């Protein structure tokens, strides 16, 4: 299943490495990354494939959120369908 991971937070060294390591550990494959600094905030959008992940989607979502909070980041994962519905006819 394809999903979108968004990471927003104060910029510092190692954010991409941390998030990617966490995803890799849970067998989530990264398909595309787009990253920038927006109004002083680190903002990253990733397209991922979760079909190899053994966890339920809701657990993965909770894990990313909690791990993000530990390091001061807002990390969320959402199924891509929601963006498809909202932005494509």
């Amino acid at each position, binding site marked *: 299943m394809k999903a*979108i991971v968004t990471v927003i937070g104060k910029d510092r060294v190692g954010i991409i490495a941390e998030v990617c390591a966490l995803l890799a550990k849970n067998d989530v494959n990264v398909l595309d990354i787009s990253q920038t600094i927006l109004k002083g905030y680190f*903002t990253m959008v990733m397209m991922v494939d979760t079909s190899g992940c053994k966890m339920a*989607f809701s657990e993965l979502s*909770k894990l990313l959120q909690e791990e993000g909070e530990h390091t001061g980041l807002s990390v969320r994962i*959402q199924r891509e369908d*929601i*963006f498809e*519905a*909202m932005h494509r006819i």
Partner: protein
Amino acid sequence: MFKRDEILQTIEMIDQQHLDIRTITMGISLQDCARESAENCCNKIYDKITRCAEKLVKTGEDIESEFGIPIVNKRIAVTPIAKVAASSDTEDYTMFAETLDRAAKEVGVNFIGGFSALVHKGFTLGDIRLINSIPTALAATERVCSSVGVATTRAGINMDAVRLMGRQIVEAARLTADNGGMACAKLVVFSNPVEDNPFMAGAYHGEGEPECVINVGVSGPGVVHHALKAVRGESFDVVAETIKKTAFRITRMGQLVAREASQRLGVPFGIVDLSLAPTPAVGDSVAEILEELGLESVGTHGTTAALAMLNDAVKKGGVMASGHVGGLSGAFIPVSEDANMIAAAERGDLNLDKLEAMTCVCSVGLDMIAVPGDTPAETISAIIADEAAIGMINNKTTAVRIIPAPGKKVGDTVHFGGLLGSAPVMPVHDKSSAAFIARGGRIPAPLHSLRN
């Protein structure tokens, strides 16, 4: 791949502009639960609801977490109990309400609608028993919502029912006096009620509906408000277009959730209700949109025109985004549930007369309005009659959800808490309508030609 801006825009809508799915409502037919023994009937009702809706809340929560969109309420609407209970050997229908309440608590939904009767042309035995039981039933339960249809465009207005409902509302307030008259917040009187409305307190599962169905109500006044900030000072052509585009996006989200919920529950998808439903949270207000359009306060001159445009643009934008549109579909103006309406009412900028005018052009009616506790039942009946007449003549749904707050007077505030918010007590006209209401009978159905 989506553009980064698109993804961030969606997240901002959810995080900062209160975008959410307001409700997933499961409609359940109870027609096969009728039994001669009231106790057996209640058992059947309990079993059927808990069986059909067993996974409703869990499914809603799963969708919430996978899509990252809050689904605020999971609810149930059932066949009007007056029909189901009519063949049972009891006159007091409170036990049916208690059964619904128990079933709602068991499956974890916060409201269950359908303690209802449709009496626009007259009362059956079941209808009159149900209406007589409404005050005690609502006082004895927590999550049950009740509605009574007293008028339709085709049948006219049942003024006997209007008179009776005025009394029942006063009685319901009296029985829940220590709770601000809370029972009245769960009671709606309708003209032209709809069968597939997912919103409370007026939801019930109508006669033309299937065995079980999923209806979804969307929200998002904050998102519309935010979009309109970007077009300040522009003409109404631009404003209408902006609202349409925003409503389209909001509704597509509703459609997605409805389809997903329907698939997972194995229950057919009914409709998406294209509504702008406010909550008491700051930034989640319909009145704020009207004020953004250039009105110093909601309630001032221009409010009706602004609301008419908003309501129409929401429907135009939303209708293309969903396969099936239904329910009440329009902007809601519940006073106690909208921060800017509360403020306007407290300032005296918004009164009942203006609200009545506003209900001519939007969904759904005089909603969540607190009036002084000593308001006569006949005055409440007359308010219902006025609203029913607007619905009847204009071929639209109108409703009255009014709370004669016990012991309160104009200037006081009644707190209901949660989504129901808090209502400033608003003045009513002090001249009597008693002789008008005492007449009873029916106001005949209106003519449909010579329209002016």
